[in-house]
């Protein structure tokens, strides 16, 4: 008797834990079968740690100038050498991680949320909003995207905030299109009709029933897009938009180092450039890995 009453609860518990362990097993399977994805996760964790604690860990003040130590090659004291003002390149590269990640994460987050909302409404209700947003996205895509970002920053004013907004705008079409496609194929799915019949409002259905199901492809898009967002933001600061010297930021550090490369002082541009490359590389690998995790059919 007592067994019978406990069984359903136990079964439910076992089911939940098995779902978790299945998920974890799948995660572990993806990680071990594709060590590259594992490396990407480790790199990402490292980058986040550096972004959070980097400024506390660096050996030198990233803004402190030492005129007598200008343009020294990498040494035991200065691992990545010093720049034209005698600042420690290693410290600057580390400290810049936070700003670079902050710019790209906020830009991508902005376009993720706006794009998801826009695409979801367009895909769910269709009609004039769908047409209008479709036109708007087409117009954005009609520009070479980096050029459009330049135009927006030039017009709206040369600030970091506008770099974020411009990067968000040029990334908007990618998210809105994925969200629209994913929502519109689900808007009449069985579980949606069931939810509608049981009296849920349309907005509630969209937010609680459909959107969670569109998250996996959106997350993959997010990760693949992140690297591109970093490249764009760094490109904008490379041509002198947004971040002002003496702020440490990878794009502007490469730009400053560019003047010294023809005379052979390679370390000024190489290290921030390599950091940038590593960050983009991490997100690209992660995107491929996430795609494997989310969708086993598209495994490459």
């Amino acid at each position, binding site marked *: 008797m007592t067994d019978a009453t406990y069984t359903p609860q136990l079964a439910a518990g076992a089911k939940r834990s098995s779902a978790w362990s299945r998920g974890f097993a799948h995660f572990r399977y993806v990680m071990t079968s594709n060590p590259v994805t594992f490396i990407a996760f480790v790199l990402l964790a490292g980058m986040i740690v550096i972004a959070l604690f980097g400024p506390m860990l660096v050996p030198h003040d990233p803004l402190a100038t030492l005129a007598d130590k200008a343009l020294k090659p990498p040494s035991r004291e200065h691992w990545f050498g010093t720049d034209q003002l005698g600042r420690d390149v290693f410290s600057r590269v580390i400290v810049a991680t936070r700003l670079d990640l902050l710019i790209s994460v906020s830009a991508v987050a902005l376009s993720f949320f706006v794009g998801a909302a826009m695409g979801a409404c367009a895909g769910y209700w269709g009609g004039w909003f769908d047409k209008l947003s479709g*036109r708007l996205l*087409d*117009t954005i*895509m*009609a*520009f*070479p*995207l*980096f*050029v*459009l970002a*330049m*135009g*927006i920053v*030039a*017009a*709206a*004013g*040369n600030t970091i905030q506008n770099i974020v907004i411009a990067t968000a705008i040029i990334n908007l079409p990618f998210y809105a299109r994925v969200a629209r496609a994913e929502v519109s194929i689900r808007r009449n799915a069985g579980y949606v009709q069931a939810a509608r019949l049981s009296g849920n409002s349309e907005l509630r259905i969209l937010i609680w029933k459909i959107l969670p199901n569109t998250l996996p492809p959106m997350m993959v898009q997010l990760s693949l897009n992140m*690297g*591109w967002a970093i*490249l764009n933001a*760094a*490109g904008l600061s*490379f*041509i*002198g*938009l947004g971040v002002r010297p003496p702020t440490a930021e990878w*794009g502007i550090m*490469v*730009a400053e*180092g*560019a003047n010294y*490369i*023809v*005379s*052979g002082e*390679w370390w000024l*541009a*190489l290290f921030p*450039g390599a950091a*940038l*490359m590593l960050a*983009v*590389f991490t997100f*690209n*690998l992660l995107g491929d890995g996430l795609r494997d995790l989310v969708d086993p059919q598209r495994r490459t």
Partner: protein
Amino acid sequence: MSQLAIILARVLQAIPTIFGIVVVTFLLTRALPGDPAAYFAGASATPESIAEIRARLGLDQPLPLQFVDYVRDLASGDLGQSISTGQPVATELLRRLPASLELTLFALLLSVGVAVPLGVLAAVRQDSWIDQLCRFVVTAGVSLPTFFTGLLLVYVFYFLLGWAPAPLGRLDMLHIPPPQVTGFLVIDGLIAREWGTAWSAFKQLLLPGITLALFTLAPIARMTRAAMLQALASEYLRTARAAGLSSGRVLMVYAFRNAMLPVVTTLGMVFSFTLGANVLVEKVFAWPGIGSFAIEALVVSDYAAVQGFVLSMAVLFVLLNLAIDTLYTLIDPRVRIEG
């Protein structure tokens, strides 16, 4: 529908797109925080002079009227006056356009010339070393910031090896530019039979061209490989093989031709990236194209110049996409059967 009708329909489709571009560039100039009149009047302006400038620029008119004025100016080729050079923006852009086009087209030729064979070979010999090479190039290509690749190439080939000339523009000081025919210095040099000049211009073009090509290599190679794999696994190819056609003919005529269709479509996206990356490469190599002009204009907040640059790049992009779609119609075998 005949090919011509399809192409015509496609040209008509470009009109709303161009209209959208004009609206956006207009909004970028007019509906912004801050007062352009106060900006144009400068720091020492009095309220009267600002009002005068506002009337002269037509900024006291309602927005739709301003838009009509803007479109009328554009139709007559007037993009406004550049503050930094004092010349009309359209003249400045036209003068620098050949330099940018030379670089962009050279880079695209180079990257298509390398990426397409690479992608095809990677698909044909799947999981061989060439497939691994293709995979490496694709992954590295999308992660490399263009400006960084450019600087690395300058360091290695100019500073260390001394093979490349200094990254300072299109032609070194020793040569005088050949008489302008196409605006492409290499071709103009050849036309004028000034071999030394043409060679020198080519050497200057090589590094920035490679930089830009490396950047566009990745998407083209990836797309070629994927499309070729799909074509190789298709049923019509199995039929062609079963019918006893030679493997070269199967590969080059049936598989390659069909695989090229999605590749041509991706070229549109590649152009978008190339025109953007062009700006960065021009800055690294001091290339006197419209990208460098735009950067100079950005630094001194030369408003009209930047807007003219954005507009002309967007129109260029639309035209390139149009050319691609026309090409697509011409190489698509299905269109021919229907027509």
